[in-house]
């Protein structure tokens, strides 16, 4: 009896009280609100234009077609060219892969040096870097354009990769610093006594232990860089415009009849990489949010 009194009601699952019904009703309504845009995207993308013109946004397609998808991929107009969004897809891949690797490498080395070696002035540097995370991009963007132009890197693939590395540095450094700071110092001291140098300890001891944080970092960077729009439009140059920019061009700058089904297919195609990563990675994605929340 006492146990039953002591046990909070929330331990019991199956009692259908009005409060419980209210909880489920709220959660169900919220779930509908969150799922609605996904549903509308999917349904619209497989309807022929004739059905879309009926103005039945939520109706299932009568005659489902995959043509909008193939048009979005290979023949929609992203400006003067009408080669679909696949070019943007590959541009994004070419931007995301090296940027992710480079920013993780830099973040890992920074975090390692900050946690174990602490060179003179490093903590001040780190503090400024953390404040840098809050500087609006607009403050930095024009002078960065000029700096890159001086280095002949503006509007080039190496240029945009460098930019993503710079903008990713605060969060990546923080992530790795916190991870390494939680490791026992004795580990490092023992390696020092055994004669390990800076790079040897990093490559042979620290890096192999860093798999979890590298996974989190990779999820964060791939998602963030894939979804970037502003940096891509400014720094990538016409040859390397990422998928998000081309998607926006397809939908907002096209002339003639608006093909809503093609637009939605292109939107899904652009969102597929981060969404796929999210659905596969699940808890890791959430961990990234928690640790990426620049906590200092």
């Amino acid at each position: 009896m006492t146990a039953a009194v002591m046990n909070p009601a929330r331990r019991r699952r199956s009692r259908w009280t009005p409060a419980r019904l209210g909880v489920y009703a709220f959660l169900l309504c919220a779930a509908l609100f969150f799922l609605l845009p996904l549903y509308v995207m999917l349904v619209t993308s497989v309807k022929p234009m004739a059905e879309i013109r009926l103005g039945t946004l939520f109706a299932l397609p009568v005659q489902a077609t995959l043509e909008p998808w193939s048009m979005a991929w290979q023949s929609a107009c992203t400006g003067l060219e009408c080669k679909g969004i696949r070019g943007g897809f590959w541009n994004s891949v070419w931007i995301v892969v090296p940027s992710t690797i480079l920013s993780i490498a830099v973040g890992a080395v920074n975090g390692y040096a900050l946690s174990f070696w602490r060179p003179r002035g490093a903590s001040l540097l780190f503090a400024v870097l953390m404040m840098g995370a809050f500087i609006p991009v607009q403050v930095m963007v024009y002078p960065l354009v000029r700096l890159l132009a001086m280095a002949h890197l503006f509007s080039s693939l190496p240029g945009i990769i460098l930019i993503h590395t710079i903008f990713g540095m605060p969060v990546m450094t923080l992530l790795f610093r916190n991870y390494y700071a939680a490791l026992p110092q004795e580990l490092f001291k023992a390696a020092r006594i055994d004669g390990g140098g800076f790079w040897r300890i990093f490559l042979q001891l620290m890096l192999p232990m860093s798999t979890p944080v590298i996974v989190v970092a990779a999820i964060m960077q791939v998602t963030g860089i894939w979804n970037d729009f502003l940096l891509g439009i400014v720094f990538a140059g016409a040859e390397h415009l990422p998928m998000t920019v081309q998607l926006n061009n397809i939908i907002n700058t096209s002339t003639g009849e608006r093909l809503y089904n093609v637009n939605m297919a292109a939107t899904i195609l652009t969102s597929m990489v981060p969404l796929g990563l999210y659905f596969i990675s699940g808890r890791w994605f959430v961990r990234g949010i928690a640790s990426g929340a620049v906590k200092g």
Partner: protein
Amino acid sequence: MSHVNKPAKRRRFSLAANIALLPMALTVLFAYLGTMLWTMRVSVSSSRTFPADDFVGAAQYVRLFNNERWLLSLHNLLVYGVLFIIACMVLGFLLAVFIDQKVAAEGVLRTVFLYPYAMSFVATGLVWQWMLNPELGIQEVLHKLGFEQARFDWIIDQDMVIYTVVIATVWQASGLVMALMLSGLRGIDEEIWKAARIDGIPRWRVYASIVLPMLGPSVSTAFVLLFVMVVKVYDAVVAMTQGGPGTASEVPAKFIMDYLFGRANIGLASAASVVLLTTVLAIVVPVYFVRNRAGKGKAAR
């Protein structure tokens, strides 16, 4: 300084370590501090297409605050920011609390509430632009259902358009608040519930008076993240409304980009970005200061 607080730690000098931190030093010096100073310098010059070396005092700032479009964008940012942050906080907190009631299918619900956060603001803006389409979107569905007087054409209404941006971005970002709050809730001691039950305190009171104050760190983290999103809001507006109809949904980030690259007036744009930077620092620094002090207080106990 450091030897007062901590037991003296011997610094390990290593050339390799110093070289390894060179990229970070260069980034801080050039990309962060350098660009910031450069922008401040340009904001007090008469620069238009190219940076000029002269000094015109606060002339650009005076022009900026006489610019209708800038004032409108500031107004929009305020309206948008207040509504977006409140809506995300409230919705995110409620979702977290309701999910925390030992509900069935918790994992599925969490996934559903958070997936929009994986999508880009561009995609978010474009989906909502389509759903809010006045001819074929939700308004038309309402008309077909018999509500012929129903009006939901906010996206082409100069007075309402900014609220559509709020709806779209709240949809995108409130899952983030839920995730942060939920991890905060999971860290709260179960004993509180037993104690409250014995004292006969209703659950909602426990949440309002005990749990919410305990979630302080999650709340301030969420606030800082949302605030940064507010100041950055650009992609969603560009994708959804292009700042229109007219300039009704103009925001500062877009104003600056337009004056930098479209209208080639970098003096004015730099002044605007300095104003934006000042706003950010004025909000973020106190939040950090308060939180760091709170954190130190806890550590001392």
